[in-house]
């Protein structure tokens, strides 16, 4: 019923979509897959009317249509749940869901009772744990994702587009969502799902359309394919199982970072841990269990209420991140646009920014030196860029994150803290980033990584501290590092190996 043929779109010099095609039958669930920067989100936005295509045709029921605005998209009964949530932080959940299509009562007034009961029933059906009058700014991101979905469904669409909505969801919530989506598809609603979690799609979708570099390269029946083939279509390479580095022979004497009884308000309670030089420590758990705040408080980015931090035998108490950087700590955020990328500056300046923080304001620096040093990083770590003086925005998300990684390699900190660094990064970039981290750890750098992705933690971490409700629930190492154990610890189920 919906067909996109040879869609093209470029942003300045960057071609986001080139010859992208997609078909969708009534009541079908199709997965739209692709590495980061392959154009999935752009395609979704074109259908949602927030981005205009440069060329190509869209047909609905064999009739060509133009979608020039989100209003036109809605008129075609298309609804989108966006990856970067479109909720307004200071309006209530109820208003957010109904915004733009309140049920009208007599004289065109908003019929509050009818609206509220409608939203209430939707929230209940989709298992969203919040009140109608809560504000999005007070809710955890998994709840926000679900509200975003409910908002899209409230439009009663024929075509539902879900752009990475499961990224912040816990697996129980995903199960519940999927069963609801199946009901929708049985009722004749067609669904397009964009996701990075490849294992999910076999559960929910019947077909997968795979984009690579803005082109649709494959349209596969998910019953007749496996994850390896999908990764092959996405990256052009057959996947290899990465070897888990051995973590024996690390002496317990060599503690580089010791944290004792750290607490931050309600979110982190009495957390203690011990990290040795050259270790890669994973901080796992469901989203919003305090692991991110914990990491940031070590860095001095958010203040802590109590607790001792000892760095290489010296007690430290950072009032700002600048002090932490001076002592050899680095930090990479997964929130690239807000917290790591200088969008108006060049790739070189972006790499150099951490080094730029050192020294006095009035000390000299030459562009030639910046270019030489950053080019060296790009060469050593094989980061794929055009020219060092190109704007950072010419790179895709995965490559931007590699640039941010290079930023810290240039100053070679003792400890590198990462807060969900590969969120929204494609499989192959993710693997490269993991290799960077291993290489750095082998050279004596200590790595603490928060991740919402279990596979990532299991693949890269020597030990995993699992956070649950603001505390460390357990520590997994060696043979305990299995998906089953990690998942049960995340849910707070076993009380095993607790750290004192």
């Amino acid at each position, binding site marked *: 019923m919906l067909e996109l043929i040879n869609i093209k779109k470029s*942003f300045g010099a960057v071609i986001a979509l080139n010859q992208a095609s997609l078909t969708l039958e009534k009541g079908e669930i199709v997965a739209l897959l692709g590495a980061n920067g392959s154009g999935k989100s752009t395609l979704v936005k074109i259908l949602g009317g927030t981005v205009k295509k440069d060329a190509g045709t869209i047909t609905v029921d064999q009739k060509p249509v133009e979608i020039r605005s989100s209003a036109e998209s809605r008129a075609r009964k298309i609804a989108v749940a966006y990856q970067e949530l479109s909720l307004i932080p200071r309006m209530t959940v109820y208003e957010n869901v109904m915004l733009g299509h309140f049920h009208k009562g007599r004289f065109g007034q908003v019929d509050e009772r009818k609206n509220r009961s409608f939203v209430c029933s939707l929230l209940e059906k989709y298992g969203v744990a919040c009140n109608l009058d809560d504000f999005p700014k007070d809710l955890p991101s998994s709840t926000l994702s679900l509200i975003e979905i409910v908002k899209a469904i409230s439009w009663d669409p024929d075509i539902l587009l879900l752009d990475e909505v499961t990224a912040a969801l816990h697996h129980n919530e995903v199960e519940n969502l999927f069963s609801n989506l199946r009901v929708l598809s049985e009722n004749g609603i067609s669904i397009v799902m964009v996701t990075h979690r490849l294992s999910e799609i076999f559960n929910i979708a019947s077909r997968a359309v795979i984009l690579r570099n803005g082109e649709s390269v494959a349209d596969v029946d998910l019953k007749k394919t496996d994850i390896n083939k999908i990764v092959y279509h996405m990256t052009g390479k057959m996947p290899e199982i990465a070897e888990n580095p051995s973590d024996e022979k690390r002496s317990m004497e060599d503690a580089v970072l010791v944290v004792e009884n750290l607490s931050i308000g309600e979110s982190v309670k009495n957390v203690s841990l011990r990290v040795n030089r050259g270790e890669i420590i994973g901080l796992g758990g469901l989203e919003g269990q305090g692991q991110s705040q914990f990491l940031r408080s070590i860095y001095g*980015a958010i203040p802590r209420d109590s607790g001792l931090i000892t760095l290489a035998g010296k007690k430290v108490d950072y009032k*700002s991140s600048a002090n932490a950087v001076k002592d050899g700590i680095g930090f990479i955020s997964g929130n690239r646009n807000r917290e790591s990328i200088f969008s108006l*500056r060049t790739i070189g*300046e972006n790499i150099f*920014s951490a080094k*730029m923080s050192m020294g006095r304001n009035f*000390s000299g*620096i030459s562009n030639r030196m910046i270019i030489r040093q950053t080019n060296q990083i790009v060469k050593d770590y094989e980061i794929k860029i055009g020219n060092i003086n190109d704007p950072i925005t010419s790179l895709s998300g995965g490559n931007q994150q590699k640039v941010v990684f290079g930023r810290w390699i240039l100053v070679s900190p003792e400890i590198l803290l990462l807060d969900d660094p590969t969120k929204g990064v494609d499989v192959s970039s993710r693997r490269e980033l993991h290799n960077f981290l291993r290489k750095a750890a082998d050279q004596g750098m200590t790595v603490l990584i928060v991740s919402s992705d279990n596979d990532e933690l299991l693949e890269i971490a020597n030990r995993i501290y699992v956070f649950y409700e603001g505390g460390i629930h357990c520590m997994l190492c060696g043979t305990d590092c299995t998906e089953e154990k990690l998942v049960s610890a995340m849910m707070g189920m076993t009380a095993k190996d607790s750290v004192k």
Partner: protein
Amino acid sequence: MISRKVKSFFNNTALMALMLSILLYITMVIFRPTALSLNSIATIFSTASMLIFVCAGQMIVITSGDGIDLSAGAMMSTTACITVELMKGNNEKLIPAILVCMAFGFIFGILNGLGVTYIGIPALIMTLCMSTVLTKLQIVISNGAPRGTVSKELSSSLTTRFFGVIPGIFIWAFLFFLVVVLFLKYTKFGHRLNLIGTNFEAANLSGIRAKHVRTLAYGLGGMMAGIGGLVGAGYFRQMQVSTFNSYTMQSISAVVIGGTMLSGGKANYLGTVFGALLLTVLSQFLSSINTSVAMRNVIMGVMLIILLIAYNRKPAVRQ
């Protein structure tokens, strides 16, 4: 191909401002052939040069991100009063006057910066308040009407015209601006300024003391306005209070017309110079066709709005 070239030309805001200045000047000559004289060119150079000092400061403040200095003009007026009061025609007081003006501008600029970064007052409000304070302060300093003059040596070094067309003030402005540009290009401060202006949070997390840098930007902005006041006093020899208050708006306009992003993070050095030139030519043009002062202000205002709309559009960026 041609359309792309035209496009890139129009995107080069510095060049565009220069071309517009020349075009306006030619139009002015057509309207009034007497405008084609070395004297009128020299006047344009002088007036634009006077604007350069405060523009450089404004450019730094705007580049620091979410920044604007509405006290720049009042600062110029204040240091101009201080200069004449202090010098009273005595050239031996020149060095002390320069130091006092710089220190005065720097200190009040830092106060602006502290208010904006550490207390969290919006820059618009903070600097507007500061502007009022400075305006009143001039009256306190000068008892209502500044009586002194600057030294003959200072004023002649600014007003003497070399080859009949290049005024001394132009050379001072040129050297000053060169120093500012080199300072911004070759110090860590200049680079940090760009980074905090682009993304304050990311700069903080990269270990840059973003609040310090931003405060310092306001300090330097105030200092440059302070120097501008001294130069202005030197050019006019005598002073009244609030002489340069209109330079606040002019400096902001020149900077933005020159292609510096109002949201911060990207400065256009050459553009600022040509922006100042364009504003000067525009005002000369309007006075040459005998418009009333009030009408001239209206036209200037409308032109500025049009120019700001034309220049400050951003290209589509992939999210």
